[in-house]
């Protein structure tokens, strides 16, 4: 009887696990394996080259460039979009005039494809002709080329990302806010706590699990979302706005250097795991689970 339950359980899992193994577990392991081989070219087969790919990686200035870019990108987008998301959630949760409009306004960018978002924003950034320059022109400023100059390209891409992401994170905060028992807030009011004290002492600590959840998601997204680069900058100028996944794409599918692409993916996997583990420990002490 018990045996039958085992077999049932395994059989139910079989189809899902066949695909999971095929497209997640085996590829993850194969990435490590392939990073120790050379890229097969024409008739020459891949051969074992040990750490050679990794040595090349350490000497690759573009790799270091995209890695630092990605860290700046994460540092620039994650805190700001999370703070905005929290503010949006607090506002939408209050009964303001036009609450429905506010919620729609904040959330709509989330529904749009990132490619479409990039198209819309590209027009703002167009030198001379775009909206930003048109407005600046009214005040007598010179033409800008935000996407075309190495100093501002990454920042311009970050702005688009924040616009797209904040509304998404708002949803999670909103859900958490609505699950806070109203009695707690009333008690605080009776005790004479101001709205800032209530937020800092009661609401914010209760939102900690959500903050952890959102921040892990945000970190993953900051490595995963590169669609807008294809439209906005193509990673340029001179890799100034390129990110790790975009570089992996270029290496593996433009230059067809799959072994080096695998090596770069290893870096990505290691980084993501470290960040996830680190965040978990960092927040774990401060998170109050109910």
């Amino acid at each position, binding site marked *: 009887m018990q045996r039958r339950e*085992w077999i049932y359980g395994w059989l139910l899992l079989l189809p899902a696990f066949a695909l999971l193994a095929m*497209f997640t577990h085996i590829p993850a392991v194969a990435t490590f394996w392939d990073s120790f081989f050379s890229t097969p070219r024409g008739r020459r087969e891949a051969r074992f080259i040990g750490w050679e790919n990794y040595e090349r990686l350490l000497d690759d200035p573009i790799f270091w460039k995209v890695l630092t870019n990605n860290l700046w990108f994460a540092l620039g987008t994650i805190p700001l979009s999370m703070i905005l998301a929290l503010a949006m959630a607090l*506002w939408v949760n209050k009964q303001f005039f036009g609450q429905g409009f506010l919620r*729609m306004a904040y959330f709509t960018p989330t529904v749009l494809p990132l490619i479409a978002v990039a198209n819309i924003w590209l027009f703002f950034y167009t030198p001379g002709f775009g909206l930003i320059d048109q407005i600046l022109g009214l005040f007598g400023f010179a033409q800008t080329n935000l996407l075309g100059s190495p100093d501002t390209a990454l920042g311009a891409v970050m702005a688009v990302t924040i616009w797209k992401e904040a509304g998404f994170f708002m949803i999670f905060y909103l859900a958490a806010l609505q699950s806070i028992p109203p009695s707690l807030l009333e008690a605080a009011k009776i005790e004479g706590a101001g709205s800032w004290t209530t937020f800092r002492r009661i609401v914010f600590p209760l939102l900690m699990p959500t903050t952890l959840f959102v921040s892990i998601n945000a970190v993953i997204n900051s490595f995963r979302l590169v669609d807008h680069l294809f439209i906005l900058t193509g990673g340029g100028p001179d890799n100034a706005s390129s990110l790790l996944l975009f570089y992996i794409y270029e290496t593996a599918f433009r230059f067809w250097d799959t072994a080096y692409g695998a090596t770069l993916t290893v870096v990505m996997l290691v980084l993501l795991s470290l960040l996830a583990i680190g965040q978990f420990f960092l927040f774990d002490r401060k998170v109050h689970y109910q």
Partner: protein
Amino acid sequence: MNGRLRFDTWLNGAAAWLLALLWVLPLFYAIWTAIHPAEFEARFVLTAPLTLENFRSAWGAAPFARYFLNTFILVTMILICQFVLCTLAAYAFARFQFPGRSILFSLVLLQLLVMPDILIVENYKTIRALGLVDTIPAIALPYIASGFGIFLLRQTFMTVPRELDEAARIEGASPLGILWRVYVPLAKPTYLAYGLVSVSHHWNNFLWPLIITNSVETRPVTVGLSIFSAIDSGIEWSVINAATLMTSGPLLIAFLLFQRQFVQSFMRAGIK
């Protein structure tokens, strides 16, 4: 005190509205250029004539009808397969005892971190070995066994009272019969939530479809749009914006119509 409180609310309201206006501005602007002739791209005159010409020329300039069909097939295929596979797996995790259960479950959760989006190099090799490059199933395959879906449905199935399960068993229902008649109907809100998240996610997906497709017959709208707007031949902005709105249109309209359900679905999908 009361005066300060009112001022506080007023200030908050003003900030909320300011941010909201800033947030809709890009979209409003895209709509403005798309429904007006090109010469009004940067001239905001209320009397500017409305036109659908931009949409017409965008539609005629690239095989968007085919792209839409491809996306529709893709999204439907993914959704149906995800529902079937994730339901079965979630049921196993929620209600069956078998050796290796917790290890297997952590292997499922691993996919929340190591997403198929990142493993593009190896997944391309797999798809090529299967001979499926440039087909719609190739776009769908890596996403079908969704760790997120399995997790979400498992959480829902665990809240189903055991008594219902046992009552059905006494009446002689098979495990699959119980799944179909007891668990699935009770999980309807989760299916709706997960369905909306999945459809919008795969409608919007770009990188993997870009890599794995290379013909009009398989490309989804996102890839089609990127090719359309990357042509240097000086297509007018108003036309590009029309195309952009067109590709996001169905989702956008669905969102505006079912706004409440949409937001609640995302919330439900997030909490658990």
